């Protein structure tokens, strides 16, 4: 994640280049009705709206009132991922919407990324409409300047924080100079500091461009000064109020607040009163009675010696003023933990060295029973990482995290010292963890089964567990959905489901990562109520959060900054706080500049396509990816012609002799070659074993034949940059453009999907579902479950990507006959002499077996 102190200079450095001014669009929606197939009730029920040219309108309403659906209908992307009945009309300036006149900015900034470099990503829209290359780049620069983007065009998109990514997405939208700009909750997934910066960028850029603005938001206070009109939708999807912001708020403020919208001037919501028994920790096994729940353990009461301020003995309803003192016993302690994340090899970093980032440095923390600890700090400070360590789902690189007292007792017979080595069941007995993206945490077929899954796995009393589950579902507003498939729930509902699932089995430690993101007032109360009840019932609660209202509920704060604990100090004001994202915490690859007292990491602002090795890079270093690919494939085709060991030896010998010329004089990558050599050895062995005469020469021949095409193939493949390959396939080979572009855009999601896989594995572990054994059957079952979860997330991301890309004109220029569109390419693909040489060399070497056998 890169942060620069230039955020404060955003307003000062006005760019010279001003973006072209458009005439804002007049929007007329008449009686629009949308019923997706498979739903009985329509989502939009005959809504009518008129927005004057150049005005700025804010749409507000309770969750489920169809606001986002309306925006997608205006952008013309409603039928991208859904089929249904659409009636009524939408007119932009008197005619149906075309791709380039409407721009849509979505909630999750990561959904809109399609390329590896900033400039290329912004160029996506103009490319789709077939603009010539010169115009594309001038638009790109103007758009980036309009949003005040802090980096240049060559910056890697994977190295951006959430707020920067959202600004990049905004630049991508503005590059097509739309006359109507639609914003779908643009700052709801960002932390307050980045949200402020993005908000400022949006306001200034849209104002400067003169487009009509229509936006949906839940938190109104930040935006009321920036818009002219407020339109309120009611729960059934019809307009209930429409007028100037100030007067509409005065009249409808209370109604909106009651429906859950965060209205400026309304009182802060208070946590709901939740019964403590719903959240009370299950006693450790030694103290547990036959039922396993506090209410059943009456005979064990005398054996428990409550420490002063410790949780009250079970079975006794706590009095109203009975607040736990913070001196409960320590349940988890992290001692001098450091965490270094090594980036997993990604498709796009095949040419870059893997960068290790120190996420936490020498952090110590303690978590006590009956206490609520808030882990606070700017984005990227390591909050999520610390909470994962405390929940036992991740391992520290140095230092240790230890479970103590009640948590340890409940973990069965002598668990290992380090928390991350505990078995899944032991961990599940004492811990509940809700990750940041809690929509991933679905583990069963129905909502009820999901909530009960850990309790059942731990063998707790089913009746008590069901009563508790029903109570929690009722508190969190999910009772009506108890029999539904969790995948059909909305995002907010899934997050609340994850919370219920984490606490039903009565953990002693509850770790929550950003529990209140995206919640409206009502659901915020419910979530906060559960947190407070858990704390009062003796659970140790750890919250990683930006939300000041939640922080106010905590007893104690652990303040992190750049991976280190800092002394409690007033929160720095927004402009000087480094910007970051609340969606991902771990830095992706590249470092930050030094801050006061922060960790100095290497800074990289440019990512070259091919990293030249030291010294002579060889022929392959000067080639484009297509020639490397062709050369490798040609070698495969030549392999079957090797018929004698002598031919094989000569051919492989010549390859080895040519290697320095082709691959350069850098250090050979032995690590990559080892699996190949193992594969070659294994092929030799099996061919020797199963050949008709069991001769050594058969084995050697087979092995050498495989080595002939595998060894150079692997080494050449490492130098292939997928996005450059895509450009060459599209421009040189004239393959259809859209599939190539889609494939390259998808390749950039590889790293995120890999992290998702890891996260799914962690969730299964903390819910007690990961098998204890390492047998192939257990692993097979895990693999199937993880694959299924990964595919669901993939399909979800693909859907949003499709919406974002279609909104930028991906299918814009499809001719009526369905032929390939006339799309242009922002970057040229050239075929150099080195490429021809490479292919020629490949043909020569591939032809050797034929020549030698004469």
């Amino acid at each position, binding site marked *: 994640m890169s942060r620069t102190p230039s955020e404060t200079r955003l307003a000062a450095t006005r760019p010279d280049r001003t973006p072209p001014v458009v005439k804002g669009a007049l929007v007329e929606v008449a009686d629009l009705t949308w019923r997706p197939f498979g739903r009985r009730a329509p989502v939009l029920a005959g809504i009518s709206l008129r927005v004057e040219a150049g005005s700025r309108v804010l749409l507000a309403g309770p969750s489920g009132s169809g606001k986002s659906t309306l925006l997608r209908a205006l952008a013309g992307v409603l039928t991208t991922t859904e089929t249904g009945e659409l009636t009524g009309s939408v007119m932009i300036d008197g005619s149906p919407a075309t791709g380039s006149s409407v721009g849509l900015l979505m909630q999750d900034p990561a959904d809109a990324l399609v390329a590896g470099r900033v400039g290329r990503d912004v160029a996506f829209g103009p490319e789709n409409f077939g603009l010539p290359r010169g115009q594309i780049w001038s638009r790109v620069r103007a758009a980036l300047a309009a949003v005040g983007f802090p980096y240049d065009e060559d910056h890697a998109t994977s190295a951006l924080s959430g707020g920067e990514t959202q600004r990049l997405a905004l630049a991508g939208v503005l590059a097509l100079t739309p006359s109507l700009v639609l914003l779908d909750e643009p700052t709801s997934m960002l932390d307050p500091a980045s949200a402020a910066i993005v908000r400022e960028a949006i306001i200034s850029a849209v104002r400067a461009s003169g487009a009509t603005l229509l936006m949906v938001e839940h938190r109104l206070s930040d935006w009321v000064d920036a818009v002219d009109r407020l339109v309120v939708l009611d729960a059934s999807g019809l307009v209930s109020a429409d007028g100037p912001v100030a007067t509409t708020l005065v009249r409808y403020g209370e109604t909106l607040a009651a429906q859950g919208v965060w209205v400026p001037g309304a009182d802060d919501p208070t946590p709901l009163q939740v019964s403590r028994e719903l959240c009370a920790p299950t006693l450790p096994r030694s103290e547990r009675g036959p039922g396993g729940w506090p209410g059943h353990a009456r005979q064990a009461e005398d054996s428990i010696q409550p420490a002063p301020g410790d949780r009250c003995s079970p079975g006794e309803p706590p009095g109203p003023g009975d607040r736990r003192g913070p001196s409960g016993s320590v349940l988890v302690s992290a001692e001098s933990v450091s965490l270094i994340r090594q980036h997993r090899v990604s498709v796009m970093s*095949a040419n870059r060295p893997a960068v290790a980032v120190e996420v936490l440095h020498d952090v110590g923390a303690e978590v006590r029973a009956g206490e609520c600890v808030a882990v606070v700090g700017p984005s990227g400070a390591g909050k999520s990482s610390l909470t994962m360590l405390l929940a036992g789902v991740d391992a520290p690189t140095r230092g240790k995290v230890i479970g103590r007292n009640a948590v340890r007792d409940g973990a069965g017979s002598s668990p290992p010292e380090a928390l991350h080595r505990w078995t899944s069941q032991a961990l599940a007995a004492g811990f509940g963890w809700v990750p940041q993206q809690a929509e991933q945490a679905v583990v069963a077929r129905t909502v009820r089964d999901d909530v009960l899954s850990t309790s059942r796995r731990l063998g707790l009393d089913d009746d008590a567990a069901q009563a508790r589950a029903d109570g929690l579902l009722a508190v969190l507003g999910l009772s009506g959905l108890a029999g539904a498939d969790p995948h059909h729930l909305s995002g907010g509902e899934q997050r609340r489901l994850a919370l219920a699932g984490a606490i039903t089995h009565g953990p002693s430690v509850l770790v929550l990562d950003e529990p209140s993101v995206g919640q409206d007032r009502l659901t915020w109360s419910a979530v906060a109520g559960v947190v407070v009840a858990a704390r009062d019932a003796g659970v140790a609660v750890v919250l990683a959060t930006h939300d000041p209202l939640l922080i106010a509920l905590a007893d104690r704060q652990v303040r992190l900054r750049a991976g280190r604990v800092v002394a409690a100090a007033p929160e720095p004001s927004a402009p000087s706080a480094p910007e970051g994202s609340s969606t991902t915490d771990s830095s992706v690859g590249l470092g930050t500049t030094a801050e006061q007292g922060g960790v100095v990491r290497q800074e990289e602002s440019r990512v070259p396509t091919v990293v030249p090795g030291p010294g002579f890079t060889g022929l392959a270093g000067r080639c484009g990816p297509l020639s490397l690919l062709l050369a490798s494939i040609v070698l495969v085709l030549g392999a079957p012609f090797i018929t004698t060991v002598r031919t094989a030896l000569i051919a492989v010998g010549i390859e080895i002799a040519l290697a320095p010329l082709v691959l350069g004089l850098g250090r050979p990558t032995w690590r990559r070659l080892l699996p190949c050599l193992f*594969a070659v050895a294994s092929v030799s062995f099996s061919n020797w074993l199963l050949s008709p005469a069991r001769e050594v020469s058969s084995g050697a*021949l087979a092995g050498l034949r495989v080595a002939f095409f595998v060894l150079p*193939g*692997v080494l050449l493949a490492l130098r292939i940059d997928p996005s450059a390959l895509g450009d060459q396939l599209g421009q040189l080979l004239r393959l259809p453009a859209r599939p190539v572009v889609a494939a390259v*855009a998808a390749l950039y999601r590889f790293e995120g999907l890999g992290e998702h896989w890891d996260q799914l594995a962690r969730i299964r572990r903390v819910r007690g579902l990961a098998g204890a054994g390492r047998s192939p059957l257990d*692993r097979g079952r895990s693999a199937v479950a993880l694959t299924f979860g990964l595919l669901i997330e993939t399909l979800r991301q693909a859907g949003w990507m499709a919406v974002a890309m279609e909104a930028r004109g991906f299918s814009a220029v499809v001719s009526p006959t369905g032929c390939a569109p006339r799309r242009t390419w922002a970057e040229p693909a050239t075929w150099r002499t080195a490429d021809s040489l490479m292919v020629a060399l490949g043909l020569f070497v591939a032809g050797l077996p034929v020549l030698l056998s004469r």
Partner: protein
Amino acid sequence: MTQPRKTQLPPQDTHPTSSSTGSPVTTVTVLATRPLMRWRGVDLITTAMLGVAFGVVFWGFDVFIYPVLSTATAGFPPVAELMLGVWLLPAVVGGLVVRRPGAALFTELVAANVSMVLGNEWGAAVLLSGLLQGLGVELVLALFRHRRFGLAVAVLGGVLSAVFEIVFYEWHSFVAEYSVAWKAIFLGCGMVSGAVIAGLGGWLLVRALARTGSLNAFPAGQEVRESNPV
């Protein structure tokens, strides 16, 4: 747009099958919107993303399961070949989800490309494998004119995919020196794996995904949805 308009209802194909009680039951197969080669944006992107996701799965598979298997079956490919179906999954899943010509091939090629660029042990040769595997499934789907996508079609696709891969590639590269009998056994193991893991497994996977509502943009999801309106 001033007229009320329905989005194009996906074409459907009804064909009689007999249930276990013997009475005829009609099942509805939803087909991709016609013209078949007019790929929608979401078709292209989802196919590519599925390919990348399977690239991740292969990665995870290599880390989780393959080491266990390899040490157990080191140097005895016929048994290791029973895992071939995992590499054929993208083609079957891609074909069953998108239901257009080229979907299986595209998914498989993207997955192979991910493998290759990540640095798996076979290098660019996996692209050739991917091509053959994808073609196998494509051929079967084309034989049914892209109108049938049931279990039998999936299994057949998996089997033919394995056959193409082994007969045209692996017989000449990895197991070229085997005796004829062992080559046949090798092929047999591959075909079984293709049928069970790729064919049956892929079909079950697509059905399960459709039930979660993840495939609402596709025919497979539409088959499930209309029968269970929310």
